[in-house]
């Protein structure tokens, strides 16, 4: 199951683990990404916390945790190849895996169709 936050992060759920990243729409808006400040493994997050900062040629942007939980793995490849997010934001450009502490939060996120509409309205 894949869901999106209004702040342009995606969550893909398998069991209790959520893989998170930024949407393709978001990477397109940020432009060429040059640096990803990854969260620390073991860190506890509340939904809405800033858990990562992404620097592109345009700006530095905060990325918000779309769900609460504990960071159990980060995509260390992004350290040396931040461009992975531009190339495949919703696949190999994932940012972190989070062990969810409150799965019901998923209900407040959008499915792809609702997210697309949200992007259009924002644009």
């Amino acid at each position, binding site marked *: 199951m894949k869901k999106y936050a209004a702040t342009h992060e995606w969550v893909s759920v398998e069991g209790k683990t959520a893989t998170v990243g930024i949407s393709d729409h978001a990477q397109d*808006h940020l*432009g*060429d*990404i*040059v*640096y990803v400040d990854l969260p620390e493994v073991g860190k506890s997050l509340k939904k809405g916390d800033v858990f990562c900062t992404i*620097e592109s*040629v*345009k*700006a530095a*942007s905060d990325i918000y945790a779309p769900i609460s939980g504990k960071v159990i793995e980060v995509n260390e490849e992004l350290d040396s190849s*931040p*461009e992975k997010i531009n190339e495949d934001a919703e696949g190999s450009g994932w940012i972190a895996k989070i062990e969810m502490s409150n799965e019901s939060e998923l209900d407040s996120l959008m499915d792809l169709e609702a997210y697309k509409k949200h992007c259009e309205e924002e*644009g």
Partner: protein
Amino acid sequence: MTVFDKSTEGRTGFFLPKEESYGYEPSDVLPENSVRKESPLLPQLSELQVMRHFTGLSEKNYSVDGGFYPLGSCTMKYNPRLNERIASLEGFSQIHPYQAEDTVQGALEVMYNLQNFLCEITGMDSFTLQPAAGAHGELVGMLLMKKYFELKGESNRKKVIVPDSAHGTNPASAVMAGFEVIEVPSNGNGRVDLRSLGEILDENIAGIMLTNPNTVGLFENEICEIQEMAHDKGALLYYDGANLNAIMGHARPGDMGFDIVHLNLHKTFSTPHGMGGPGSGPVGVKSILKDLLPVPVVRFDGSKFSLDYHLPNSIGKVRSFYGNFGVFLKAYAYILTLGGDGLKRASEMAVLNANYLRTRLSKLIPTAYPGLCMHEFVLKGSKLVSEYGVKTLDVAKRLLDYGIHPPTIYFPLIVDEALMVEPTETETKEALDNFADTFERILSEAKEDPNILKAAPQKTVVGRLDEATASRKPKTRWSKDT
């Protein structure tokens, strides 16, 4: 070609005395790890070659002296040569900061008078001239705020509110001073959203940092309500005065209720912004904060000017000596030559020029917010993407081919594909029309063949730079092997 590429083994333009003539070996006077084992790898050129190399580089530079420079938020205006001349007068340029006070009374008088002028212009009670730039002024302002609450026993105030449109230095300065930053969103009119502000304002807020006109070039017309809300909760109001050139002589931050302000003398008061030498970011405060100002403060007892270091509650020293004195001189000369009426008129021209250009350009690309602007305005370039498949970046690069410095792009962050234009008060109508005509031409190019824009610039010294690789794999120094 770098100066190294022009090097020829053995060529030289200058003869240094032979090492023996010093009468000692470098190892006699220097620790071992500071003594070179081999000669430094310096380029070898004749004096004329060096002259031509650097003159050539300077000719490739783009400057306000050479052309229109509407870089939003940066106030790239023309700064009268007269002020440079005054600043280089020998009596000013040849004095030393360690000279005795009674031998530099004139210099102290300039600083004292300038402090007073700035008080008058901004409506504040006291000024320090020490901070070296805008961002440094912000940091000093934040440290003043912190100290103020420490002395009041309100150290619980650890948060500072900053609008989402703010210049990046604002939140950075607050964090540097040890505050936590909370962002307040803008409303649909590009101003601070008062409802959201009310929700985050509480007894843990030390202050609100605002720019007025703000970074989208709009006057915060609810500033009186904002100041009341802030002061009701015991918070202070900070004014980023980098945009003062829009309101000089017409409105004063002090009267709007601001407690601390910084100004960018390099921008508003006749020192070039960037690349033209050092800046200056004086900080002004209301009397409740005046004893906390950095030392030294310039005083006058009716007959003699002096430097006062005895402020027990001062936040301390923030800069070596007394600040960037040359910039004070230019500001002082600028204020005296224009006078009160002239400063007022400078602001009027800044606003008039911006609105003229806004009216012309908004027929091509919509502005981000409706209505009149102050000294600058923001266009929303998302239409370029949807209609022509070109980005703001492509338009900016194409402007270079027409010999015009592009506006600021992708700032402020809250506007999609932003183009921020600040024509400044010193441009003629012809220059503004030329810019608007060029813009129009570029948009028709975009319609006919977007690739022209995507391949731009073609006529510049270097083509489109690969910014992403430059940031991902920066090479910051020359080496023999590259």
